[in-house]
Structures are given as C-alpha cells and as structure tokens.
C-alpha cells in the first residue's frame, strides 16, 4: 500500500472517531443521551474527554496534510506517537473507561485499531521502506 494512502486512512479514522466521540461527550454531558451519557451526564470534568477527542480529530487533519507531502517519514512517526498515546491510555485505564460504560468489546476493538496503526506506521516510517514513495504498480 502507498504510504500516503496509509496516512489518509489513519487521518480519516482519527477525524471520524475523534469527532464522533467529542460529539457523544457533549451530547451525553448536556442532554444525558447517547452511549457516553452514563458517565458524562453533568460530570464536572467531561470537558477533559471532550478536549482529548477534539484534539485527536485535529491531529487527524495534520496527518491528512502530511499525506500530501513528498517526504512523509516525520508524519508516520507523528502518527505512531498519537496512537501510542491513545492506545496506551486505553490499556492503562481500560476498566475505568470501558468497564464503567459496559463497552469492553468496543474497547478491545478500538484499542486493537490503535496498535494496528502503531505497527503499520512504524513500518512505514522505516527508512528501508522509503516512506517518501512506497508504491506498488496496483496503487496507480
């Protein structure tokens, strides 16, 4: 796969999931509706989760910008760092975050996605693979 496409898929994942989670945080906090309502409804520190999800979406736009650059190695490293933070904190606080919402299966899937991105972005960042232009004939 073209490494630019990998960055775009990663960016779309962050923008979609981050944006949706930020919206779910706000709806759960203010209206008591949606999947996050059980822990977010009128929670005094719901702002922190909202901010984190919004930042994840924003970093998605950074990766999208990076996918258009000729030298993408630094963006693959950045993507790896983002997913280490997100996946790592999911693992660290798994039961408190997903257990409290009874969303363990979702937690497992989303954490696996983060680590799959860590792996693929690390491989794409390796100089041997040439992060600038790893293309296959099928990619065109």
């Amino acid at each position, binding site marked *: 796969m073209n490494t630019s496409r990998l960055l775009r898929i990663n960016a779309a994942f962050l923008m979609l999931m981050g944006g949706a989670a930020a919206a779910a945080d706000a709806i759960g906090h203010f209206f008591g509706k949606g999947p996050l309502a059980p822990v977010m409804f009128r929670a005094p*520190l719901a*702002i*922190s*989760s909202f*901010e984190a999800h*919004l930042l994840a979406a*924003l970093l998605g736009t950074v990766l999208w*910008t990076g996918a258009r650059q000729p030298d993408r190695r630094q963006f693959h490293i*950045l993507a790896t760092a983002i997913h280490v933070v997100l996946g790592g904190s999911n693992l660290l606080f798994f039961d*408190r975050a997903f257990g409290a919402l009874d969303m363990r299966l979702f937690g497992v899937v989303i954490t696996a996605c983060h680590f799959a991105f860590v792996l693929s972005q690390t491989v794409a960042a390796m100089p041997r693979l040439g992060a600038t232009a790893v293309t296959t004939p099928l990619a065109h």
Partner: protein
Amino acid sequence: MLDLHEKSTRISKTVLRLHSSLLIAATLALTTASGLGYLSGSGQFGMLHSEPIGYIGLFQAYLLMTTMGVALWLGSTMVKTRPWHLIGILGHAAPLAANFLFWREIERYGITHAGIAIHVSMIALELSGLLLSRLPAAPEPAAVPSRA
C-alpha cells in the same frame, strides 16, 4: 544581509519553536501534576481522585498536546511554515471552544480566565507567525540579455 522574506521566515520558525517548547514543557508538567493529584487526592489536581473519567480525558488531552508540540517543532524544519501556524492556532482553538462550552462546569475550579488567557495568547503568537509566513519572497533580479 538578510532580505525581508528571509527575516520573516526565520521569525516564523522561531515562533513555531517557541510555541512548541512551551507546549511540551507545560503539558509534561501538567501530566505529572495531574497524575500525582489523581493518585494522592491532594494538591491542585486533588479533585481528580474522585473523578477518574475526568483524569483519563486530561491524561489523553495533555499528551496529545505534547504530541502537537512535537509536530510544531517538525513543522518549523519545513520550507513552508504556514500550515503549521494554522495547526498551532487550531490546537488552541479546540480547548478554547471547550472552555466556553463547559464554562459552568469549570467555573467551580476557578480556571476559566487562566485557560482563556493562555489559549488566546498562544493563538495571538501563532497569528503573528502566520502573518509573517505570508510575506512574499523578493523577486529575482531580471536577467541581463547576453549578446553571445
């Protein structure tokens, strides 16, 4: 002697590095302080002990801002700095918007005005970098036609 474009590019890169350094230092300090507050229940972040969901969000938000700081530093090494100033502005626009949206909730902690002051000053810093990065390069001197 440096022309206006080179000077403005240099200042633009300095703005990105200054912002990046401040972000990395502040967020790492805040991650440590909030972690201690969560574990011990005392200090500035002591309230996190009884708000684990709030702490998880803060943990992620601070470390993502650290990552954003690293991204801005990377941006300062690139030829075109303009998109990175925009990213720097958006990075603070997100928590600033959250500040206003959750005003009532965070008012009890007395951090509304401090938060706004920090984010607005960083947005102003990046706006100055953004304006400087838009200065056009000096035109190439016109080639003298050769008689040869």
